[in-house]
């Protein structure tokens, strides 16, 4: 955009975007809890996590698309996690770890295009990397390694679809509106 470092304004903007997402999907938190309760009796309770994963990962790609700087996606996602921690989210300090993991995950999608491409391919790439990296993290954190293989495949596909719909397509639609409003580069 302008030069290659983050300035005070960018940092405030990233934190504000993270807060906006936090405020809006605070309303969506019941989706996660409701889904978990519904899916638990059939043994797919943890899948609520995969269904909603794309929602929690929206701030990163959006920051990457708006600021177009190396590290923007990571910072957007990580600041989002920090905001959640400070607002008294149940996961507390552990948020910072998952925020860092999700941040690296979305950043990779931009890194492989050398921060040159900002189109639908980037959307698919960020969703793909975000899915794989966060799934790898849950492999350890939530004990996915012990799940049945067919279940893992379903969960991986569901997570990718969620990423693509929310942190991919929805983010791109928002970015398109910002581009049309000449707020950010097309």
């Amino acid at each position: 955009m302008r030069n290659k470092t983050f300035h005070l304004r960018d940092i405030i903007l990233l934190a504000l975007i993270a807060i906006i997402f936090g405020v809006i999907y605070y309303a969506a938190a019941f989706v996660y809890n409701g889904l978990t309760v519904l899916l638990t009796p059939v043994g797919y309770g943890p899948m609520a996590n995969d269904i909603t994963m794309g929602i929690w990962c929206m701030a990163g790609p959006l920051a990457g698309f708006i600021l177009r700087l190396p590290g923007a996606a990571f910072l957007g996602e990580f600041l989002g996690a920090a905001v959640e921690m400070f607002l008294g989210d149940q996961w507390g300090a552990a948020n910072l770890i998952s925020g860092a993991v999700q941040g690296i995950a979305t950043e990779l999608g931009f890194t492989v295009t050398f921060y040159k491409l900002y189109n639908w391919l980037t959307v698919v790439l960020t969703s793909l990397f975000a899915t794989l990296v966060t799934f790898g993290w849950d492999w350890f954190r939530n004990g996915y390694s012990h799940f049945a293989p067919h279940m893992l495949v379903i969960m991986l596909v569901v997570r990718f679809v969620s990423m693509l719909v929310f942190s991919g397509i929805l983010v791109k639609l928002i970015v398109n509106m910002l581009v049309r409003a000449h707020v950010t580069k097309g």
Partner: protein
Amino acid sequence: MNPSLKLIFALIISLEITFTTHLTGNLLIIFGALLVLAYHRVSPHKVTKLALITLIPAAALFVTMAFFSPGHNVFFAWVLVSRLYCYVLVGGAVTLTTDKLTLIRSLEQNCHLPSKFAYGFLAALNLVPRIRQAVVTIRVAGQMRGVNLHWWSPTLYFKAILSAIQWSDQLAQAMETHGFVEGAPRTVAQPINITKRDWLLLIAGLALIQLVLIALP
């Protein structure tokens, strides 16, 4: 204990228990976190609320692991449940006992977090009530025109981001007119030090955690 060290300690614990499967270890860590919370006189009401919200994902993991997974591994199911509670309570032992201003000041002074991040982040956090209000206003304005903006409508985010861009400009400008210069050396009004006691507590704590995680089954 120094807020930065406390945070680092909690992060190390959270990372370690992610890659280990010690039920006794996890239970002892939960017990320790509860002790810390009690020592700081955090209201039991808050802690109970934390524990109750966590019950939902914990139950989901337990049921799937114990009844629907190939090994029907009940032991591992308990490990996962206790691990979730470790995350929540260890995290709570940091966030419920430290106020954010002190933590960020400490990160700036003790961990050399650049001041633009420290104060930029704090400035943004102070806008939370206004952002909440703005989101409500955008929704109501939509409803007046017969448009219902759901949480998945791009328009809702678009409008909120427009406000955010304006606010970030104004805030940054305001901070700069008040003399904030990025990267310039700063004096501190409230110095936060890391004392010998803080280091001792951290090292002793870490040693204890290793002992618990390695020596116990």
